[in-house]
């Protein structure tokens, strides 16, 4: 995207992509593509090379030219005349916008029609009518140069999800009409399962106050206040309409602001927080909720987590790269015991020892949580020891990330004890701590009794290379064992992820 000099320009530049301008820009290439595709179609059917070439060359004027050529062409034959079905199909494709005929056709004709349809037909026509994957693939490829199917499932889903995300990204509260998004809702509600938005634009701030007053009539009540309202798009209506939504990945921030940086752009307001909390509480199908890099502090985290208590479907909660402290951690700990949470990430927050202790307390008797990430916090030895104690009783956790937590030898000794007892842990990360050589030795001792751990990250943790190497060997042996176990599953019920590292190799 272009570098922007002012907020207004930002608005204009970001506002340009949405749907109105989009078809116009795509108009020409699609017609060309259509012509090309139709030409190729004809060539396929006729299977005579010379006329095809000529036809391809003068694709503009069709009928008269053809007649003239035929009259002079000695090689002309009846085979080059397109079949009536072909002509009908072409006509149907041409008038598809006004008269969408698809379901009444024979299957092979349906296929042909779908192949010929232009990808920029209005969604209102195509959304619920066309299920064909190849069509939607064409649509996607046309709009976005890079498309992945793997994380979505179907091309139709890819298209709708990305389309919706695009709309939300470029929605400017107060300026953009909310109907733009809500109109799409009945079309896409059955296909959208994931919303991944890494940008929420703040409302437009016109330089002259009196002018902007008229524009900001929506948030009129706050208009008089000194600080302008910085609330972002409210997801409530949209999410309430999407009955298949499972994943919500949000970042309250602005991308590519460049030198126009202002702190205001990155403001996750209380109103945003409350509305988001209400939204996720109302969405009972939500499984994954991510809110990262959004300056969520303790209070906001508490508000959000309170709304998530006893959520029926939530499995993953990611609040990494925020400003959550001990109180937020305590709230998260409470959430652990009041939900079916499987993955919890509080990476790069400000959780300290008390927060870690409360998390450890909740973890001690938890039977759902599989992964806990506390990277780049500062839980220190106190918190680390509490977590280690909790792991001695926990029988569920498989992944634990404690990188960059100022941990040292005491925690290492306790974790080494855990290693010899625990049989569920598969992945531990203790990198970027000050474990020291003695701690490394103790961890090595603990590893000697362990048969389940597959990954144990101890980089940059001041342990001797010898112990690191030996631990690595033990891990390798464990991995080999796990692989044998998966190859011969009769011996043992293999853990979920035991298959892991060998998968690409085999």
């Amino acid at each position, binding site marked *: 995207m272009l570098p922007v000099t002012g907020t207004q320009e930002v608005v204009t530049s970001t506002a340009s992509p949405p749907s109105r301008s989009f078809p116009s820009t795509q108009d020409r290439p699609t017609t060309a593509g259509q012509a090309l595709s139709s030409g190729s179609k004809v060539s396929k059917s006729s299977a005579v090379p010379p006329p095809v070439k000529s036809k391809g060359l003068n694709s503009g004027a069709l009928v008269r030219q053809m007649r003239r050529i035929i009259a002079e062409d000695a090689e002309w034959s009846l085979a080059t005349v397109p079949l009536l079905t072909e002509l009908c199909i072409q006509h149907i494709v041409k008038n598809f916008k006004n008269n969408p005929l698809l379901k009444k056709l024979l299957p092979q004709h349906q296929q042909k029609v779908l192949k010929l349809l232009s990808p920029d037909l209005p969604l209102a026509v195509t959304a619920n009518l066309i299920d064909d994957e190849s069509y939607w693939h064409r649509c996607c490829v046309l709009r976005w140069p890079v498309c992945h199917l793997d994380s979505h499932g179907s091309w139709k889903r890819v298209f709708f999800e990305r389309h919706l995300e695009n709309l939300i990204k470029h929605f400017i509260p107060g300026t953009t009409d909310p109907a733009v998004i809500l109109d799409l809702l009945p079309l896409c509600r059955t296909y959208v399962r994931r919303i991944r938005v890494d940008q929420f634009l703040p409302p437009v701030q016109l330089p002259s106050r009196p002018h902007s007053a008229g524009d900001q009539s929506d948030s009129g009540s706050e208009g008089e206040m000194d600080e302008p309202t910085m609330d972002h798009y409210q997801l409530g209506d949209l999410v309430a309409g999407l009955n298949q939504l499972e994943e919500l990945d949000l970042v309250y921030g602005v991308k590519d602001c460049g030198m126009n940086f202002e702190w205001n752009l990155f403001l996750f307001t209380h109103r945003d927080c409350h509305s988001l909390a209400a939204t996720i509480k109302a969405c009972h199908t939500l499984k994954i909720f991510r809110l*990262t*890099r959004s300056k969520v502090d303790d209070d906001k985290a508490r508000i959000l987590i309170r709304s998530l208590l006893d959520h029926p479907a939530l499995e993953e909660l990611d609040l*990494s*790269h925020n400003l959550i402290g001990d109180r937020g951690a305590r709230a998260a700990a409470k959430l652990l015991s009041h939900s079916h949470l499987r993955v919890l*990430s509080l*990476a*790069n927050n400000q959780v300290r020892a008390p927060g870690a202790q409360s998390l450890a307390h909740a973890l001690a008797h938890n039977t759902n949580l599989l*992964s806990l*990430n506390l*990277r*780049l916090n*500062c839980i220190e030895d106190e918190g680390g020891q509490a977590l280690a104690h909790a792991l001695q009783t926990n029988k569920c956790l498989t*992944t634990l*990330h404690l*990188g*960059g937590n*100022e941990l040292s030898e005491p925690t290492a000794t306790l974790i080494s004890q855990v290693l010899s007892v625990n049989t569920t842990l598969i*992945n531990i*990360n203790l*990198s*970027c701590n000050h474990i020291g050589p003695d701690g490394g030795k103790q961890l090595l001792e603990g590893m000697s009794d362990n048969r389940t751990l597959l*990954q144990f*990250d101890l*980089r*940059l943790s001041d342990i001797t*290379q010898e112990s690191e*190497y030996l631990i*690595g*060997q033990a891990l*390798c042996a464990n*991995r080999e064992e796990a692989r044998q176990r998966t190859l011969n599953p009769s011996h043992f019920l293999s853990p*979920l*992820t035991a*298959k*892991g*590292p*060998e*998968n*690409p*190799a*085999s």
Partner: protein
Amino acid sequence: MNPQSGPLGVLGENEEEHLTAEIRGPSIHSENPQERIQARRLRIAARLEARRREALGEYLDGKKESEEDQSKSYKQKEESRLKLAKLLLCGTELVTNIQVATDIRETHRRVEEEELRRQRLEKLENEVKTSHDKFDEITAKWKEGKEKRIPQELWEMLNTQQEHCAGLIEDKNKLINELQQELKMKDDQYVKDLKKQSDDISLLLERMEEQVKSVMKTFRQELNHIEKAFEVERQELLISNKKKWERALQAHNAKELEYLTNRLKKVEDYERQLRKQRVWDFEEYNTIKIKLEQDVQILEQQLQQMKATYQLNQEKLQYNFQVLKKRDEESTVIKSQQKRKINRLHDTLNNLRLKYAKQIKQFQEDNQSLTSEYKRLVIQYKELQKSMRHFTLIDDEKFREIWLMNEEEAKDLISRAFNIDKIIHTHHLGLPWTAPDFWFLKNVGPISQKQQKSATQILEEVLMQTEEEAAEEAGAAPESYLDLPKRVSAKTTRKILMLLCDESGFLIESKLLSLLLPLEKNECYLLRLDAIFSALGIENEDDLYTLVNFFLKYQAHHLPSSQDRASLASSMEPAEQLDLQGEEKQSLEEEEAPSSPRLIHPNDVLKILEAFVMSLRKPRDSRAPVKLLKEVRDNSKDSEYWKALATVVSQATENLWDGLYLALEKYHFVLTQRAKLLAENSALEQQNTELQALLQRYLHSKINEELQIPPIQVFQMPTQPKRP
């Protein structure tokens, strides 16, 4: 969840999905010291990894060698797998190293930041304090100023105040400047950090790309390797299979050829056989045809016959059927009858059962009554026996009385006969009469054998006698011999018995011995002997005497052997004694008797006793039935006796008497004739007289006159001749 992307996904925002890394190169020459350290570490790690891989490879090799049969492709696969796993692991490590490095940098930064913040806060606090003090000072001076009345002083003071205030503001400004400086530095730092981050990200991307490339390359290589291995294996397999196949094909061909030749031969053979068979079959067919035609004819005949018989049988069977039907009817009738009968019989059976039960009851009662009767009869029988015994006694007595009576009568008759005989002899014959003398005439009472005395009685007698003898004199002894007919002197017997009594004390019960002590000597002997005899089985007189005799005989036989021990005086005689055996033995023994007890040595007594008991046992058995008959009275002599009584008158006298009787009879007859004749004569005389009287009356009756022929005339005629 793919574990490869899992941990990486957690890592954060500056990394996206990737599997890339570079093995070495730019990182060592990076301007960042951290980066370089990282790179060196990685190099070391890679070396270690290589070493470990070797070890593991060896281990795996060893494992593989153990499973030599594993194919080459499997080996290659395993190798590639390990290699790729290593590669991926290293790659991810390499990539994530950047993240780790930034993490640690961040933590360091945070620590520093904290420190700095702390310092700043301290500084600010100090500043606040000092400025506050100054401010207080200034405000205090204002008060002073108010009191000042002199303008110069006031001006001076104001000046100083101004200066002070300026100083304070200056201080503040300085602080602000410092802080702004710091801020600027931070901004610079931020920009640097941003740059570094972008560097990092570019490095990361580079590494990722390189990693992707290398991984793809290695994957491709390994795939090629594996494919090659597979290809080689496939080739080998193909070759081997082809060889096998060819071999098999050759073998097959050879076999096929063999089979073909065999088959041809066989075909020829079979054709020959077939021809032969065909000829043979044809002939056989003809013969069989002829035969079968004949058979058909025969069978047709048979069929006709069978048809005839069939007809016959049908009729017969129909007839039988009719008969059977009738029989069936009859049988049904009979059945019903039988059923009725059965019912009746059942009734009777029930009745009989009832009767039977009744009878059982009755019989039981009868049985009871009969048993009671039987008991009664037994009692009666016993009474009868008692009475019988009583009657026998009475009968004996009666018998005796009758005997006596008859005897008396007989003797009366005999005496009468003798008297008559005497009269006849004296009166009629005039001969002298002597009374005959017979033993039986003196007999009074029934003849009976004398009862045997029991052994104890004998003993008693013997002992008593000896007592008496002892009391009288030895001279009186011969008289007492009478009672011992057995030719053994009482003295000898006594002595033997004394000896026996002394020697065989063991036969007596010890209790009895104690009882005997206070008794008299004789009685003592008696009781002792009694006990001994009962032990030996000696019961009566005979036994006792046989015992005594046995003793004597034994002594006689064995004397020579015991001679040496015996006295010299008695040893002289045995030789003579032996010579005199036989008839004189009895007297000899009597003579020797006194010496015999002395001759019998007490030691021999037991031997003798033993021998005696042995000998005694035999006869005892045979004698038992005889004893039973003893009760019946011996009446053989009675008839003799009575005959004798009857034949008291001898035949001669009887003949005499007969003759006499005949003569006297004749004489009597004559006499009676005379008497008769006399009586007849007198009767006839009387008759005659009467008849005369009667005749007279008839003749004188009137009837005679009326009759034409009077009966007197007829009558007179026969009467006349008769009259003589």
